[in-house]
């Protein structure tokens, strides 16, 4: 299959370097045609992607691959032929080949838009790879709760790398992963403020009252912005639970936010006790 005509239907920068010379009819027609074999077209497009810093340009290839990624779910819903899954699997397979990191990151970003359960293990591999772990985490979060296992699996492998560890912890908290209660509790003991706050956020997301004593104990460890953020987690936790338990949190805030500049927090907490 020669994809050159498809690529040529997509614009190159015109005046002032912007994509103003674009023909909607032609590009729409191309997308319709490539949907006949999206997996095969995807593989060829990936071969044309280049590292952003290298010679040449891949503007049309990126544009067409992205157009396919955003439109294929709708084609799939209308035609019901598993197009989306085929396309995503083909894209995910290219991640195991030798390619520049920024190319892999771009492919992962397309899976963020259209990927499903079928690609989570391939994307999850990148949670331990510096420089791409962010992209992988955000793609997995977009795919949803079924991705949580990938973050849990990655954690032991990234324990000694603060950025990768907090990235995985962040993913679990964002997904409100019920199986990660102990992981969040462990994070409360972390000496790094960032990890401790992510642990507090994870527990806030779960709003499990049994964790409240440890949660409130860890709340006291922060200073400055951490103390401010932690108070916010306290209030959000309180909003999610029954009033009899929430009262404990508001009382905790009244007892602990005693600085003059924390008066507004005491007032809010007090208003919930009336």
């Amino acid at each position: 299959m020669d994809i050159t005509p498809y690529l040529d239907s997509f614009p190159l920068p015109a005046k002032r370097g912007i994509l103003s010379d674009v023909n909607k009819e032609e590009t729409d027609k191309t997308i319709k045609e490539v949907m006949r074999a999206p997996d095969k077209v995807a593989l060829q497009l990936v071969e044309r992607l280049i590292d952003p810093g290298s010679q040449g340009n891949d503007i049309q290839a990126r544009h067409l691959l992205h157009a396919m990624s955003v439109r294929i779910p709708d084609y799939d819903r209308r035609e019901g032929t598993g197009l989306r899954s085929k396309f995503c699997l083909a894209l995910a397979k290219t991640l195991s080949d030798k390619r520049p990191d920024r190319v892999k990151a771009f492919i992962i970003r397309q899976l963020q838009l259209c990927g499903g359960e079928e690609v989570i293990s391939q994307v999850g591999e990148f949670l331990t790879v510096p420089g791409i772990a962010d992209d992988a985490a955000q793609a997995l979060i977009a795919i949803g709760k079924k991705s949580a296992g990938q973050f849990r699996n990655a954690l032991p492998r990234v324990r000694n790398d603060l950025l990768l560890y907090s990235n995985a912890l962040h993913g679990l908290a964002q997904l409100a992963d019920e199986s990660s209660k102990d992981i969040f509790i462990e994070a409360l003991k972390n000496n790094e403020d960032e990890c401790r706050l992510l642990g507090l956020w994870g527990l806030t997301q779960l709003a499990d009252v049994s964790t409240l004593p440890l949660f409130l104990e860890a709340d006291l460890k922060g200073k400055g912005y951490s103390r401010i953020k932690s108070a916010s987690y306290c209030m959000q936790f309180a909003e999610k639970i029954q009033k009899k338990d929430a009262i404990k949190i508001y009382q905790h805030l009244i007892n602990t936010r005693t600085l003059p500049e924390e008066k507004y927090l005491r007032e809010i907490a007090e208003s919930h006790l009336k």
Partner: protein
Amino acid sequence: MRSNRRKFLKTSAASAASFQIVPRHVIGGQGHTPPSETYGAALIGCGGRGPGTYESMVRKLPATLVAACDVQKTRVDGYIKRKNPEAKGYNDFRRLLENPDIDLVAIATPPHWHALISIAAAEAGKDVFCEKPMTRFIAEGRAVVEAFNRYKRVFQIGTNGRFGAYKSRTSRTIHKIMRSGLLKPNPCVHIKKGGLKLNQWSGKPGLKPQIPSEDLDWDLYCGPSPLKPFVTDRVGGTHRNYWDYEGGGLCDMGQHHFDPQQWIYGKDDTSPVNIEAFAPPAHPDVTGMWAWVELTYSDGFTFVMDSAEWGPSYDKKASKQVSLSQLSEEDQQKITAMPDPAPLLSFAEAVKQRKQAGGHPEAAHRAACILHLANIAIRLGRKLQYDPEKEQFVGDDEANRFVNVPMRSPWHL
């Protein structure tokens, strides 16, 4: 005003040396506000619109610049030098928000930071004046609304059109007709033709990575957005051309155009339910061409954006104004008997009275939603159905991935 007075001002007033550099109104005296009623103010994002946003915030408020922040050190240093050399400079907004001398925060960063900094400022007990557009995606707006409700702080979006709209008797009458629900189904159409700076704020794809200047914290600049290789166009005014930070001229100018119209047409608490765009496929990184977007509310009322810069003009429906003559005589009398809507408070009035400002979070969020819904329809190339209560697209999981875009660790809503 909060009861705890600002330490900065206390020490300034107590120091003879400080009198020479502290503005007259801070010191007090005949015709000037005494220091005990002066607000400590801060600016986050000192380039571009920053200084103007700060001045809009402190208009009609006795305020002193206490602190400023920018991820680019030369910018914050330059601003402080010009505005108040006594003010403290920061590169990280989190450190600025720890400063208890600050009551008011003006936010003029690129929009990918607006929601997170607004929320953090509310959590720190500050009132916020935030540059438009309010957010980068829909879920951010809801989180801002919740935070300001939780902390009972004042928020005002940086656009003033709705205050002018309120002054117009015709606009107030339209507002009353729309809020009454008597015009149902609503056949009216408001078309905004041009003014959305399509060509001006379209991006240049394929620019080669560069090395950022030493005084720019590129990682913090990107913040919740993907950490991409640095390109000069990604900072400064051209940040508007990247989906990572804004949403082109449509987002940049849209809140100015649609915020007042949203108030006039009584839609501050809801969003369109059907959205259709005429646009070619969008590029993954940069904003580009589109012809028109049609957004219809559940009562039938329609907003249209016609770029007038690319593609065919919108011709599905003609413009149709809401008027009393569309109602029965009995209903017209009901409208005439209705009291005018409550006046919209300016930021200054809201801060002094501890009440909600005219451009409050829910209204600003709903206005930003109009822009985000339009851009999502442009980017996805399909008709969309939206549930304004759940703030989710109906039957389109992938479209919902544009409603709540995952953020880079450690940032989150």
